[in-house]
């Protein structure tokens, strides 16, 4: 069989396999969507895979009532955490790539290690420490924690990004009399927008999807949405269809980011993965 023949034969087979795999990956999404759109009366286990008769938002509304305060908590936590993380990472990255000092590479490696530790190994002191600071149970405490444990990855992403900025550009600015601050403000920062987008998205997603820190550091009223959803699902009173709608609501913010800013999302993912 010549290569062209095999090509013609295998092409439909390739598509078939891809479509089958896509169905597997989309199956939960299908279930979430159709469940959310069913009327409350229409929901029952035996028809869980059937399409809804008409469009209703009953389940979404019920789930939203239960989760909206916690969605709001998540936003109040995640937005400042992402912004502060980016600023810290940008300044650190600037120093570790353009203002190296004695042992700076060693210190950089020392910072990186924080990226890989299982948080169970620091959880007990963290809880005691935050309690002493009076930050346990507060949203600002959670912001602080995400900023601190984000230092490694945000510094890494910015350092790698700035490594691509040629030193000549900085030298030119230096001849014009700019120093540490001036070079950052007028040369480095204006070039940083793509790296900022990557780090903002990465830290937003990380903090939003977190469960471990949230569950030990917040209380009933300050729970982010992940903890609230888990408790919603753990209770016997709440019906499965409301849980499904709640799961979709919880997933929505990061899904929207993925859909609209997927390129940057992926770049953050790869930065966290390939180097380190």
């Amino acid at each position, binding site marked *: 069989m010549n290569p062209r023949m095999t090509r013609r034969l295998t092409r439909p087979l390739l598509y078939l396999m891809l479509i089958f795999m896509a169905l597997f990956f989309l199956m939960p999404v299908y279930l979430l969507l159709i469940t959310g759109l069913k009327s409350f009366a229409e929901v029952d286990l035996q028809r869980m895979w059937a399409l809804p008769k008409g469009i209703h938002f009953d389940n979404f509304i019920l789930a939203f009532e239960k989760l909206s305060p916690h969605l709001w908590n998540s936003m109040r936590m995640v937005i400042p955490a992402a912004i502060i993380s980016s600023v810290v990472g940008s300044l650190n990255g600037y120093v570790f790539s353009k203002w190296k000092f004695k042992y700076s590479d060693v210190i950089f490696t020392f910072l990186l290690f924080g990226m890989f530790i299982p948080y*169970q190994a620091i959880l007990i002191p963290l809880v005691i420490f935050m309690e002493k600071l009076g930050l346990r149970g507060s949203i600002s405490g959670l912001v602080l924690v995400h900023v601190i444990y984000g230092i490694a990855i945000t510094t890494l992403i910015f350092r790698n990004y700035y490594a691509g900025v040629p030193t000549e550009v900085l030298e030119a600015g230096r001849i014009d009399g700019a120093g540490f601050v001036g070079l950052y403000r007028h040369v480095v920062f204006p070039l940083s927008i793509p790296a900022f987008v990557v780090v903002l998205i990465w830290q937003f997603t990380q903090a939003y999807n977190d469960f471990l820190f949230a569950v030990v550091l917040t209380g009933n009223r300050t729970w982010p949405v992940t903890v609230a959803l888990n408790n919603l699902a753990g209770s016997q009173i709440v019906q499965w269809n409301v849980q499904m709608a709640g799961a979709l609501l919880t*997933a929505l913010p990061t899904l929207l980011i993925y859909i609209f800013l997927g390129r940057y999302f992926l770049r953050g993912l790869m930065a966290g993965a390939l180097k380190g």
Partner: protein
Amino acid sequence: MTATPVPARAAAPRPRRYVNRDQVLAILVVMPSIVATAIFVYGFIGWTLRVSLSNWTGLMPDYSFAGLRQYLELARDARFAIDVRNTAVFTTIFLTSCLALGLFLAILLDQKLKGENFFRSVFLFPMAISFIVTGVVWRWLMNPATGTRITGINLLFQQLGLGALISRWHLTDPPWGIAFVAVPAVWQMAGFTMALYLGGLRAISEDLREAARVDGASEFQMYRYVIMPLLNPVTLSAVIILGHISLKIFDLIVAISQNNIALDVPGVYMWRATFDANNYGRGAAIGIIMLLTIAVLIVPYLVYSMRSEEQQ
């Protein structure tokens, strides 16, 4: 005569002093991060280690030295034995499935098909979602109920006439229950593995493939003998990343299994021992064991990648 060297000498130190001031600024800028890492990462690890070597087993802090008591108790602890076995099964299934499925999807997408972007996005989107959401959804999809309460994928199998495939999922006898819990984890991370492999495949030049084809290699042989060996570094990265996710898996298990001890893992046991049972010493010991297990994976990799960066 003496006038000329004076300005030159005066001018020479000035830029130097300037750089020095900037150098101090640079160190000041990174100082908070260094201090925070020193306390929150290294200091806290030391503190946890101290707790793990203490007699602190109740609500009141007790730092009295107990040697390896907590570790020895864990070694005899039936629940921790389940955790170790579950971690081993989960990691094996999760790693091999992610690598195999990820590579398979990457090769499929590397065939210059139409709709590549669409399929890639579909395989990758679970990455954006919290493990808690994944757990809540898959707990329903893999609901083990039977009879009139049958639901989820089992119901789908029944309706499609594939009754033979109906499974009791994570209620299956140990250790296979935990293997089914790996399914949603694979669903979430296979796309990421695919993205890693696809990056690797795209970095391999077309000339190399052509050369293999000209030499008479079939497509399969080309992948097996030319492409696969070149993808080894990607596989290594993937093993490191997936491995360390697997060893510290926590939220997915909490969301799927709720309180089922048969599906317990160290991450969950640490949380329960510390914050439900107030057995701080035991919780700390589990935390330290998790850290050491992951260090075995990460440290050689960090050293290796630092060395190769220096060589560049």
